[in-house]
């Protein structure tokens, strides 16, 4: 699979996953909505149920009232027939009970104007009936002489009307009951629908979730496998790159070596024949002196100045240039030789290594009045001793070389461990390096700042080449007149390498 379609596949897969997750999330949201709706329907249902119960209560009260009323009527008749006081007592209690019940009905149906009106009518009818009862009973006791009322007893009629009205009221409540019960039924139906929808949704969601989880798990497994493969590939790649790098490095080293050698050959000629020229100038000078003494007229000023000043001056320039070139070639040669040396890693007590370095430079530093301090307890490192000695020797030497005049020199060497690496610092209070030159100072034959010190611009190039070889880096932190800090970061453990061919 090439990178491009693979990338597209990953992208479409991602989009698909997003859609699936979106659908599942939407499902859950709907479920929550349905649940909320279900709760509201349930609440409605509870209200309906309460109202139904209320209606039954009213109905119960109405029938209670009616029973008591009927009992009153029955008790009256009993009294009228038997004149037993038991019946008269019964009339009193049942009518009182009926009255209380009617009051209850009035209170219960406070929300219904129709029933309120009915209750009012009922109360009138009950009053009528009561009066008829009082009259008839008084008559029966003999307290009443007027029998007309007895024979035109309004009680019976009232009772009949009461019965009819109670029936009407009950019917009224029945109507309400029908409405409320159908409402209750509707909420129940709705609840069933909601429950059914929720169940279906739940089933779908469960299926969806399981599917998504399975899919993710499968993808996860696949990517894990791919990752493992990639990891293995990566290690191979790193090994290949390292080999490539090493080969390139070897090639550069060989190139530098050959170039420096082949440059040397013509240089031998230039220097050799310059010396021959110089030697040839001697007899010419003698000749000129003799000519001036014996035949001054043949000596031209041009000839005299050619022999006396032009020739020696030219030879001098050729000589200094070739000497400089020789130094440069030697520097390249030295670098290439350093690159060809096989590194031998060994555990190094850095304080001891740096002690050697500073001891070697002690004479220089005391001459300059500078002080070199090495922080005690520097972290250990497994690396190449010679290379490290060279690195720190060059860095400290540099620090001593570029001190700020008029400021007593101080060079501090410190270090710390950073994970699998160790970092050492060489810090001075010298003249510093302009930040724009920080990269340049590490280049071969390049220098920075005032050119008042001898040197070819080799030291730091050498340091960097060595640091690279040790698998490390070297960086510079400085500003003009602020001193400079050179930081060497190295792997705490350098792996032994095969000899460079």
């Amino acid at each position, binding site marked *: 699979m090439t990178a491009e379609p693979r990338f597209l596949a990953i992208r479409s897969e991602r989009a698909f996953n997003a859609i699936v997750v979106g659908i599942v999330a939407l499902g859950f949201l709907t479920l929550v909505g349905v649940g909320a709706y279900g709760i509201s329907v349930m609440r409605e249902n509870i209200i309906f149920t309460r109202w139904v119960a209320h209606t039954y209560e009213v109905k119960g009260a109405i029938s209670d009232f009616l029973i008591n009323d009927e009992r009153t009527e029955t008790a009256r008749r009993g009294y009228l027939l038997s004149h037993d006081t038991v019946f008269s007592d019964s009339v009193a209690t049942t009518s009182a009970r009926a009255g209380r019940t009617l009051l209850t009905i009035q209170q219960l149906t406070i929300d219904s104007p129709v029933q309120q009106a009915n209750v009012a009518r009922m109360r009138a009818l009950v009053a009528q009936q009561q009066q008829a009862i009082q009259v008839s009973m008084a008559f029966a006791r003999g307290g009443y002489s007027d029998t007309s009322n007895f024979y035109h007893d309004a009680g019976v009629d009232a009772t009949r009307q009461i019965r009819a009205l109670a029936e009407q009221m009950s019917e009224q409540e029945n109507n309400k009951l029908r409405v409320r019960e159908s409402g209750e039924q509707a909420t129940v139906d709705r609840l069933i629908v909601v429950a059914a929808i929720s169940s279906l949704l739940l089933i779908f969601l469960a299926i969806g979730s399981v599917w998504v989880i399975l899919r993710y798990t499968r993808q996860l497994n696949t990517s894990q496998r791919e990752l493992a493969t990639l990891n293995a590939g990566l290690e191979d790649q790193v090994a290949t790159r390292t080999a490539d790098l090493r080969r390139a490095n070897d090639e550069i080293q060989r190139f530098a070596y050959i170039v420096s*050698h082949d440059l040397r*050959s*013509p*240089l*031998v000629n230039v220097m050799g024949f310059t010396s*021959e020229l110089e030697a040839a100038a001697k007899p010419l000078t003698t000749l000129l002196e003799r000519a001036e003494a014996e035949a001054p007229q043949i000596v031209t000023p041009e000839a005299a100045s050619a022999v006396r000043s032009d020739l020696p001056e030219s030879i001098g320039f050729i000589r200094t240039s070739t000497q400089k070139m*020789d130094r440069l070639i030697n520097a390249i040669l030295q670098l290439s030789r350093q690159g060809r040396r096989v590194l031998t890693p060994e555990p190094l007590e850095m304080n001891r290594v740096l002690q050697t370095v500073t001891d070697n430079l002690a004479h220089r530093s005391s001459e300059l009045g500078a002080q070199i301090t090495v922080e005690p307890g520097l972290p250990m490192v497994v690396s190449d001793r010679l290379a490290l000695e060279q690195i720190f020797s060059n860095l400290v030497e540099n620090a001593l070389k570029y001190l700020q005049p008029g400021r007593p020199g101080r060079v501090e060497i410190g270090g710390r461990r950073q994970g699998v690496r160790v970092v050492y610092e060489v810090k001075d209070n010298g003249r510093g390096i302009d930040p724009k030159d920080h990269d340049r100072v590490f280049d071969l034959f390049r220098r920075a700042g005032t050119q008042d010190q001898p040197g070819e611009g080799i030291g730091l190039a050498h340091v960097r080449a060595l640091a690279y070889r040790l698998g490390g880096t070297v960086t510079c932190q400085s500003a003009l007149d602020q001193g400079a800090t050179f930081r060497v970061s190295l792997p705490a453990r350098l792996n032994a390498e095969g000899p460079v061919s």
Partner: protein
Amino acid sequence: MSEQRHVTIVMIEDDEGHARLIERNIRRAGISNEIRHFSDGASALHYLENDHSGPALNGPALVLLDLNLPDMSGIDILSRVKSNERLKRTPVVVLTTTDDKVEIQRCYDLGCNVYITKPVNYESFADAIRQLGLFLSVIQVPEVEGNG
């Protein structure tokens, strides 16, 4: 000293300038032996192995050899000379710019008699050649076997 006169110095050096400087300094050291100069390996080998006046067939010789030659490596010439029955006792002085330790060891392993690195500094160079001249004036070169 008269015997030394017959020893031919075979100089195998591709750089004309070097050859001239070497010759001048040898002469300045007072050595007047014949100097045969070859600037490539093939003609030098031909002279050494097949030429009638060459060391294989006639007269003793001493070889001054540069390792960097245009057509072959001086190491090849050295091993050819040292593996040749008639030439193997001929002293070979390797005179080259290379100061690589491995290279030097290889030359001695192959039977090189003296290895001199050409110094870039001319005074040292001239000095080295003059001393080589002194050395040549006292060195005993074996006669070629089977030669009258």
